[in-house]
């Protein structure tokens, strides 16, 4: 019983991290039609910003990281994506690859490619005893952050003016412009929201692992991308579900795989994803949200 509860908490906390990543990717895909492969690199920039500002009181560190990421996301949109706004999805994707590599190797030049370690929010890595079950503080933080942020984002999209403008741009960008929606403003808002998700992932990632390389974004991007595809490309609920599913699979395999096979865990995770997509090519909740992108 304890083992089961422990497993569920682990799965939900890892899944939450993946869900946040997937939502960040899915949001931009929904509003801009862009699969942003540089998203994981935003998370990496957030992690290094935490490393550089670790001396401050922790909320200040997080605030600085958030501001840096908002500026990075807006700059990425302005410099890289806006000039190719009307290009094909393939072109957009290649631009995002180029951006991803540019960011990664800029950071290699600045910080080297070796892992850096940092002790951020040490209180979070202590274990709490709740009803006889040991839970890492980080796990609770991950679960709470996922719930709060997903809820806040859903409310933002549902109830605010920019929110329904986002939904309109997602459904029909030309018509949105024809009713006077400032499409660049709406897209900028989407990038800001995705930057806030990214900085949350940075904080949780650093608090949990305490280590970083300039390449940490790659794995996250792939997992986030896979989660959005599983969820049914684009629907935010689908992204969250997909993230939790990948997290669940990862945790399950960590528990179930013999030690010899542990290094190949990702192969099993993605193998399961391939199987699932063979069975449901449109993603998990394709029916409800077949045409809804955010």
């Amino acid at each position, binding site marked *: 019983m304890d083992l089961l509860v422990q497993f569920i908490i682990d799965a939900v906390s890892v899944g939450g991290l993946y869900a946040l990543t997937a939502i960040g990717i899915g949001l931009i895909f929904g509003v801009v039609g862009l699969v942003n492969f540089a998203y994981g690199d935003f998370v990496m920039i957030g992690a290094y910003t935490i490393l550089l500002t670790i001396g401050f009181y922790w909320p200040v560190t997080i605030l600085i990281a958030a501001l840096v990421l908002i500026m990075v996301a807006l700059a990425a949109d302005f410099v890289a994506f806006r000039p190719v706004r009307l290009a094909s999805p393939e072109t957009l994707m290649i631009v995002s690859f180029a951006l991803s590599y540019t960011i990664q190797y800029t950071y290699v030049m600045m910080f080297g490619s070796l892992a850096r370690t940092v002790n951020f929010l040490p209180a979070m890595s202590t274990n709490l005893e709740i009803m006889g079950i040991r839970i890492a503080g980080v796990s609770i933080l991950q679960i709470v952050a996922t719930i709060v942020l997903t809820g806040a984002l859903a409310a933002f999209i549902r109830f605010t003016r920019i929110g329904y*403008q986002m939904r309109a741009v997602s*459904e*029909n960008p030309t018509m949105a*412009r024809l009713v006077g929606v400032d499409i660049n403003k709406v897209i900028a808002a989407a990038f800001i929201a995705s930057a806030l998700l990214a900085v949350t992932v940075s904080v949780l990632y650093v608090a949990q692992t305490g280590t970083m390389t300039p390449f940490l974004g790659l794995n996250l991007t792939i997992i986030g991308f896979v989660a959005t595809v599983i969820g049914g490309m684009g629907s935010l609920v689908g992204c969250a579900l997909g993230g939790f599913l990948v997290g669940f699979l990862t945790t399950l395999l960590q528990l179930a795989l013999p030690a010899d096979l542990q290094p190949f865990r990702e192969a099993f995770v993605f193998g399961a994803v391939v199987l699932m997509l063979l069975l449901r090519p449109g993603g998990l909740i394709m029916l409800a949200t077949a045409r809804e992108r955010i």
Partner: protein
Amino acid sequence: MSLLKVQGLAVQYGAVAALQGVSINVAPGEVVALIGPNGAGKTSLLSAVAGVVRPRAGTIGFDGQELVGMPIQKIVRAGIALVPENRDIFTKLTVIENLLIGASTRNDRDGIAQDIERIGELFPALPRLFPRPAGLLSGGEQQMLAIGRALMSRPRLLMLDEPSLGLAPVVTDAVFAGIRTLRAQGMAILLVEQNAVRALSVCDRAHLLSAGIVHFTGTPDEIAHAGDIDAAYFGVPSDVAAQGSA
């Protein structure tokens, strides 16, 4: 004095010329219809005025401003609203959100609330549908919503593209009743219709467009009496057109 002054407008899609030097005017408060067969270039003209399509040649003057090359959003701000052919309402948004998004260029809360009320009076079928997703509306309700959404930007020129398309006659009646009310309130309207009888029944003047060229311009009466034109372009006997204009 004309509100909209289109001169020598030419629109080209690849090798296909959709418009070849079209000139039309709309005066303030005037309802002008563009009628003509499929592929005549009617929709292209509206698209060029709205800024969706960039013309190859010609000028589009609106209240003294040149619209060619102006971004879509600025054209909306200048006072032009388009209701496109397939209505293009936002199906995932609720009806009320569709109306609110029509006011994207405005920030006057009170005025926006008043306009929503006014649109409810114009199309009494709409208000009870406000909380519903717009995708669940019938074709006629969607058309009324699309017109309402366009009105939310407080346009000085309303462009309607085939408002009767795919609607049952009784529903078309309701839509055209709304158009008549707008006309009575002094709204300038540029109306594209394949249903010439309907169009001639509400307009002050009509332009007959075919293969990208204006072939005839006149009042509904003048067009009705040019029976050969009706026959040539619509296959409509002239007495039917005359009835429509009465």
